[in-house]
């Protein structure tokens, strides 16, 4: 779901991180869909060099994926017009979650792993050699001199750990080739909030490109490279990726910056695997939601189940957890500290609380949990709390009734069921409808006396999209306010001392509190985005692992 304010917000993110030129290129790609170099130059009115550099930065940071179409014959005017660049909305959005990703790593692994991931997040993509150099730099700065060999070993060890846990992956192919048959439907597709359907179509294109670019299943998380020694000969520095390549042959100037070395030997680039982080955060969100709605016991059981089956589920947004037998669940529950006090009966009761009834598989009863349902409940909670705050208690009740029913209900019936005064009900419903929270239909009954009824319902797909757009809008507002507060502060500091109303200390304290409030709200909103955006869409991953889903433990 890419909405108008979604684009504005992500462009703002890019603007804050990489400046306005990169943001301009990015915005055009987000709004118009995949474009080739000439078109980007035309639309952005930047020089080709500026566009190239911007694209290099975006590719380096995994925000843009290049691809091309299979050529039919010599009718095209050369390969240079054939490379398409596609902005990856999700990956740009992930940039606001880096702190969360790091938190996950620092909880599960040691500092070395955290440093490694930090490097990857900061630089987008790194070779092993670059990671080693970075680690050395860090060690030197920390003044704890270590022997180089050990440093390299340590980095490699951390990398293997993160690869095994799938938090790091091999970078995708720089320019996968798509079969030509889809060529017509893709160029310069408009992607806007108004054309929900086309946005969906281009998502399938996005999926196809990503699938084509992704390394083969086993290779993706494999630390073994054909020639690890190539690392020593590779010299690129990450901070200026554009500089060296800019001067390269024109038509493939937008290949990755390590291209020169690639001619001689294969160099493997690594990056953070956002999918795994999102999956992890999704599980966490489910567990926390269950804890809030039910109790600690249910949360413990759910966590144990998800942990036990982690290696078996490979879709980011699995709808149901992998089936587990009661004994297996119990065994896993016992592993955690809070689970040790639970009896088998308690575990079974929690499973029932979680809404899963045993399905007989063979001789053992096995359980699976409907994660999609949990996510749905969390989404409902979020929207309902907006309705409550914005429209009041009566509206909240009416909205919940319609949301639960899921079908059209007549005004008077709503008023009766929710105990709302008959004359107030239409007013409240109208307000909700005007703000796009409800869908309304008129029903005219021709009888002895013609009468008109108004029927209302909650149209979830539409509403969710609307709410998500409002959230993006709110997030954009928060980040702009942060910028504004900073600016104001600068102005204040430039004033002569006698004109300053508050003392410096007071001002700084105020700014600090303001930023804490704004930034923590932004983080919380980020979680809500995930709920409506990242946890929702269908998975982008390959299906070969899905076979494992049916694996019976």
């Amino acid at each position, binding site marked *: 779901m890419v909405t108008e304010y979604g684009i*504005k917000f992500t462009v703002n993110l890019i603007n804050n991180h990489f400046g306005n030129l990169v943001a301009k290129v990015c915005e055009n790609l987000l709004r118009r869909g995949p474009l080739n170099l000439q078109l980007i130059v035309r639309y952005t009115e930047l020089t080709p060099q500026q566009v190239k550099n911007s694209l290099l930065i975006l590719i380096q940071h995994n925000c843009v994926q290049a691809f091309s179409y299979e050529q039919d014959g010599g009718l095209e005017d050369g390969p240079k017009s054939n490379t398409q660049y596609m902005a990856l909305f999700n990956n740009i959005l992930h940039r606001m979650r880096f702190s969360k990703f790091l938190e996950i790593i620092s909880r599960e692994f040691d500092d070395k792993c955290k440093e490694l991931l930090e490097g990857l997040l900061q630089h987008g993509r790194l070779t092993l050699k670059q990671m080693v150099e970075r680690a050395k730099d860090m060690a030197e700065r920390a003044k704890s001199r270590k022997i180089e060999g050990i440093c390299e070993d340590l980095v490699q060890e951390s990398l293997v750990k993160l690869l095994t846990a799938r938090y790091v992956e091999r970078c995708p192919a720089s320019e996968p080739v798509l079969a030509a048959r889809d060529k017509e439907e893709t160029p310069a597709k408009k992607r806007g909030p108004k054309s929900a359907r086309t946005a969906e179509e281009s998502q399938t294109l996005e999926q196809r490109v990503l699938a084509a670019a992704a390394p083969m299943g086993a290779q993706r998380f494999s630390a073994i490279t054909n020639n690890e020694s190539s690392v020593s000969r590779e010299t690129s520095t990450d901070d200026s990726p554009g500089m060296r390549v800019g001067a390269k042959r024109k038509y493939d100037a937008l290949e990755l910056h390590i291209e020169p070395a690639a001619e001689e030997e294969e160099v493997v680039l690594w990056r953070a695997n956002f999918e795994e982080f999102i999956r992890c955060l999704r599980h966490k969100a489910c567990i926390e939601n269950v804890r*809030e*709605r*039910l*109790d600690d016991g249910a949360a413990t059981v759910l966590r144990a189940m998800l942990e036990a089956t982690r290696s078996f589920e490979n879709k980011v947004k699995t709808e149901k957890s992998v089936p587990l037998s009661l004994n297996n669940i119990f065994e896993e529950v016992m592993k955690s500290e809070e689970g040790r006090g639970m009896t088998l*009966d308690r575990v*079974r*009761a929690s499973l*029932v609380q979680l809404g899963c009834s045993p399905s007989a598989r063979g001789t053992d009863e096995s359980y699976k949990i409907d994660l999609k349902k949990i996510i749905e409940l969390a989404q409902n*909670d*979020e*929207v*309902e*709390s*907006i309705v*409550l*705050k*914005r429209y009041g*208690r009566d509206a*909240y*009740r009416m909205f*919940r*009734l319609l949301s*639960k029913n899921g079908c059209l209900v007549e005004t008077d019936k709503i008023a009766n*069921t*929710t*105990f*709302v*005064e*008959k*004359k107030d009900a239409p007013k409240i419903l109208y307000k909700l409808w005007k*703000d796009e929270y409800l869908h309304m239909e008129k029903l005219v009954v021709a009888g*002895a006396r013609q009468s008109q009824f108004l029927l209302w319902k909650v149209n979830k797909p539409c509403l969710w999209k609307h*709410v998500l757009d*409002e*959230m993006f*809008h*709110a997030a*954009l*507002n*928060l980040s*702009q*306010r942060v910028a*504004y*507060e900073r600016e104001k502060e600068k102005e204040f500091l430039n004033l002569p001392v006698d004109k300053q109303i508050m003392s410096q200390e007071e001002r700084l*304290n*105020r700014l600090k*509190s*303001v930023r804490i*409030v*704004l930034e923590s*709200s932004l983080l*919380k*909103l980020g*979680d*809500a985005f995930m709920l409506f955006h990242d946890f929702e869409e269908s998975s982008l991953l390959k299906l070969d692992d899905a076979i494992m889903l049916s694996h019976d433990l």
Partner: protein
Amino acid sequence: MSRLQGPSLLKRKRPDSNSPSVSLTEHERLLYDLIQSKQDMAIWTRDMKRETNLPDNVVTKSLKSLQTKKLIKEVVNIQNKGRKHYIATEFEPSTEITGGTWYAEGNLDTEFINFLKKHCVKIIYEQKVATLEGVLDTIRRSRAFNIEFTTQQVEEIVNVLVLDNEIMEVKSNGIGEFGSIPVGRVCYTCTNKGGNKGEPKIGAMASIPCGVCPRISLCTPDGIISPKTCVYFSKWLDF
């Protein structure tokens, strides 16, 4: 309301009179018979005029006199509070007119409803889990009300409590708290609010000004309403 007998009834003057001994004028008699014929459904003044073909001032005058003779009374129809409805004194208005137990004089009796709601929550809270019948039974035994509630009425209250997110529906599994309730029966339990003083959790969006802003659709980065000029923001960030 016109679907009853129609004009034929009106032309006939009723000879029998179990009606009061008070003497009535011809017009009053006509109107009274019409009103009485509607029984507990009452009738709207406009409909009377249409059915009797009497001029406005005659109807108004006759109604007044019938009222003073205590033969008819005015009732509020909750479907249309603005329209004057009359009913013969010997009838009590039907629930369709009054709105039933939950209405008092044509208005939703919120005080009564809220009291009953609180009472139900208390019962469910004390019993941890309760079935509808359990709640009804407890209410009956408590004698806190001088009205006898029907299952349907309590069900309506319980349903609205579910919509309020005060309680939630669960199915009995026959274990623990559900021990006394047959497996599969629908019961109610208080929602877990994480000790937040009984208030539901406020979502990420609802906790910032933009989430509840009535003007969000007019707010743009450089517009008249913008995050820089926003009064709600200023209030929120006033430290």
